[in-house]
């Protein structure tokens, strides 16, 4: 029998311990920073939040009153952009992963999707303005803004869908084909239910991204101040991130608007958090339903 030198073991264990501690410290400090940001914003913003803040129009040059139109505008934009981007993104993901033949075209489509994900959001804003606002004549409107935001979220949703479908083991597909099921049926009844909880993640990420973006809505929908709520998709709307930007940089009295700015930030964070929780709930509900255990 050979005897291995015990030093090696000790050294290996020592290295592992160090690596482990470094990783631990890094992840804890990131958490710490995150909590600090949240705490900082909450501390300054929570004071102004009350029923009136949520349900009233801004007043006195946006130094007083509430932020109702911005909340409503953001909800409209998030919902509508997701209603557009989710089905289109999921269908494209299905096409790329399940139908497109391996080869140059598929590679190209995948590369373009990845590139699109890396395009700065202000570029989407410009594009949205050129296409939806001017060319298609929607004007600065919820429709134009939602379409622009949908474009922004699309690559994310396509990619998550692709990855989720790729993660579905082929043995399930084969079992379905072997029972005489066609491709479409196999995708609908076997593959998609398994992949769905993960696809929802794409939706979560999409919502997170869309609700916080300022640049894409800047030229396509966002209004500096509107005294009334939007009535149709062709109306302009206020939105939380833009409102925040406006009252922190170009309001009538920036100092006086400060508390409202922090309050707005808190609401924005709460909305994103709330949407994430909802999507998480849907996700776990579905994974229980497909009996993955």
């Amino acid at each position: 029998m050979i005897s291995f030198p015990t030093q090696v073991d000790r050294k290996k264990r020592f290295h592992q311990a160090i690596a482990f501690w470094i990783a631990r410290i890094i992840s804890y400090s990131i958490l710490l920073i995150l909590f600090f940001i949240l705490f900082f914003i909450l501390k300054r913003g929570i004071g102004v939040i009350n029923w009136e803040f949520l349900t009233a129009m801004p007043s006195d040059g946006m130094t007083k009153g509430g932020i109702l139109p911005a909340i409503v505008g953001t909800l409209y934009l998030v919902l509508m952009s997701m209603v557009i981007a989710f089905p289109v993104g999921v269908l494209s993901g299905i096409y790329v992963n399940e139908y497109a033949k391996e080869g140059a075209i598929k590679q190209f489509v995948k590369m373009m999707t990845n590139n699109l994900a890396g395009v700065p959001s202000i570029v989407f804003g410009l594009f949205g303005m050129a296409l939806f606002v001017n060319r298609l004549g929607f004007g600065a409107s919820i429709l134009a803004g939602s379409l622009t935001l949908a474009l922004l979220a699309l690559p994310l949703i396509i990619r998550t869908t692709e990855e989720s479908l790729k993660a579905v083991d082929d043995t399930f597909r084969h079992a379905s084909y072997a029972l005489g099921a066609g491709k479409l049926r196999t995708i609908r009844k076997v593959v998609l239910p398994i992949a769905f909880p993960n696809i929802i993640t794409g939706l979560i990420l999409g919502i997170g991204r869309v609700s916080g973006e300022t640049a894409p809505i800047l030229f396509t929908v966002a209004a500096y101040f509107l005294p009334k709520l939007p009535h149709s998709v062709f109306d302009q709307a206020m939105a939380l991130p833009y409102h925040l930007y406006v009252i922190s940089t170009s309001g009538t009295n920036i100092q006086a608007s400060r508390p409202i700015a922090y309050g707005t930030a808190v609401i924005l964070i709460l909305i994103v958090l709330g949407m994430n929780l909802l999507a998480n709930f849907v996700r776990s509900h579905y994974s229980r339903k497909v009996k993955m255990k």
Partner: protein
Amino acid sequence: MRTKIETNNVHLHYGDFHALKGINMQIPERTVTALIGPSGCGKSSYLRLFNRMNDLIDGVRIDGKILIDNTDIYAIPQSEVDRLRRKVGMVFQKPNPFPKTIFENVAYGLRVNGLKDKKLIEGQVEKALRQAALWEEVKDKLKKSAFELSGGQQQRLCIARAMAIEPSILLMDEPASALDPISTGKIEELIYELKSNFTIIIVTHNMQQASRVSDYTGFFLLGELIEFDETKKIFRNPEKQQTENYITGRFG
């Protein structure tokens, strides 16, 4: 006995690789045929011909004739392939139930093939589970996830799933290789009973299993069918030296 399956001079290529080299075989109806041979000799490739599962692999080329009930199954239109697969059921090496309930696993094939009547589906599911000798173990938990079953039970569930749509041929690719001796025994008993209704082809690495369950045995080596005959003959006095070497464990 009527010939159920017949292959004439069948060649299969994966790209440049010549995986099956001129296979001729005639399989009588309502019998069990075992395919044996060392790993990589082409047993699974051969089995997958009969329900055209090889079609799913890129770069496959198939030459020769494969007849089921005297129909060339590679001459039928693409739209008929689903119908062929309804007639030729398959059980895979690794149990692969769907992440659905036990009931829905068995009902899936019925629904896929257009059955809607709830009573009819329930009856058919129970019948298949009984045939697969699983009914007593699962009748109280049909709504539970199939993943809560043991590996052996999962494999019997997959057999039930395949049988529910009443195919006339059952292909089994090492159906017991992931199972303990007791589950294996149950599946062997099952195969023996199913023989009266189905034509069964089973791939196995287990010589005892082949001799216990099958009527005919085909021995493959490097993509060629070395010998095909009644199981008794193959195991008592094979024609070819290579066959004898393999079944007596001298190589492979």
